[in-house]
């Protein structure tokens, strides 16, 4: 399992400033890693390049993305919607591979979605929408899953629970979590790729997170990591 960026550069127009400039990093271990940075830093853009949703090396982008031992790269984001013509349970059933039915049910319980499964998508609250969307990606075959603010509208307690569980359920996958929550990222993520303003070089710095693996009621805040992150960003 190996993911690296080499001198990745991206612009959105000919005369515009680049969004990503000469970006280099690599991730070699599975687990929950984070993509962190201020709003507009280019996290979404980078994630879409990594998963092939944006082309690398066309007229607006250059550099290389190297991927080894990974086949299915998925990108999920928080404003996705499910079709409206039937209950979310129906849509979920349709896209869950037979072998993952129990896993799906477990996730639904875990995510606190059980009472809402017979509702259509547009009747859910924002956080409920976030969660159901994430569930359907988690039951897919994937090697890399980018979660672009996938839990942005979920409350912190639920978020923590979800993150911890994902970590134990998918220890051998590469999860790339985009979030603006400093503590959460510092506490639970393994490597944290911090994207900085495009004018600074190197544009990204990798900070080691605390990578907590379970609920630790007495855990102190990961202050050192937080400080590092704040300085980096």
């Amino acid at each position: 399992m190996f993911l690296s960026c080499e001198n990745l550069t991206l612009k959105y127009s000919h005369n515009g400033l680049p969004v990503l400039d000469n970006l280099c990093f690599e991730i070699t271990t599975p687990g929950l890693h984070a993509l962190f940075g201020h709003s507009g830093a280019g996290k979404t853009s980078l994630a879409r390049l990594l998963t092939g949703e944006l082309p690398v090396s066309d007229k607006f982008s250059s550099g290389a993305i190297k991927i080894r031992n990974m086949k299915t790269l998925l990108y999920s984001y928080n404003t996705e919607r499910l079709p409206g013509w039937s209950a979310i349970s129906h849509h979920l059933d349709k896209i869950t591979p037979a072998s993952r039915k129990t896993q799906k049910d477990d996730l639904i319980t875990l995510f606190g979605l059980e009472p809402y499964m017979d509702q259509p998508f547009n009747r859910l609250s924002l956080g409920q929408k976030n969660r159901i969307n994430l569930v359907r990606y988690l039951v897919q075959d994937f090697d890399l899953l980018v979660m672009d603010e996938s839990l942005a509208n979920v409350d912190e307690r639920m978020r923590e629970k979800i993150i911890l569980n994902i970590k134990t359920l998918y220890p051998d996958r590469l999860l790339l979590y985009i979030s603006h929550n400093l503590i959460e990222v510092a506490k639970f993520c393994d490597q944290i790729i911090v994207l900085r303003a495009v004018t600074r070089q190197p544009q990204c710095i990798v900070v080691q997170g605390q990578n907590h693996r379970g609920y630790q009621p007495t855990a102190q805040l990961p202050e050192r990591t937080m400080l590092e992150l704040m300085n980096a960003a």
Partner: protein
Amino acid sequence: MLLRRIYQFLIIYCAGILLLFLLKYGLQLSDYVIPSPIELWQTGCAEFVRYFKDVADTLRVAVIGQIISVIFAFIVGIAGRKATWVGSIVKVAAYNVQAYPIVALAPIIFILLGDGFIARLLIASMICYFPILLSVIGIMSEPVVDIEHFYRCTGRLRWQLEVKIRAFENLNKLTTVISGSATLAMAGTIVAEFIAANAGIGYSIRIALYQSDLARILSALFVIGITLSVYQGLLEWAGALIKKGWET
């Protein structure tokens, strides 16, 4: 809703007739240019039942024609939604056929199909399908990214699903167009009867035209209008039901 449609139609029809009478008495036109109110009333009474039967007959063909049109428009619209070569040739074909006025195509249609029910149905459908097609193509060629993204990136976006998603997201527009196209199906069938048939209200209009009998034509228009208002009202009601059904 149904009732409202009917009395709205009556208002409009009366307004139209009134305009004609104003013109008649304003310009002092004789009864053979614009019939007198009495003549119109008498003709209307005399012909109502017969015209009503004719219109019922026409409506029957129109309904079938509309169903065919909708199916056809969806097939072509779905095939032509992609910017591929096949998609665009299907579109060009569909558009071109439409550009030919039916009167020019009629002889060819009759050569190919004889003059049965089928030829009439084909003409009616041809007139009705195009507006539906335009909407369907418009709707079908525009991705609903936030919904489709998941299916696309997990390789699950088969065309049926894509079509279903886009149709559902544009349900309102589609039902508007489909229920609106009822009028076109009706007009199409009347034209077909006008050209070819020996039954239906189109045939009666042809005869009235041939006899220069505006009173009859106006009576026929009245019966067509009222029938269509009812049909349209029913369609809208059905559309609302479907929407409700699909959305819950």
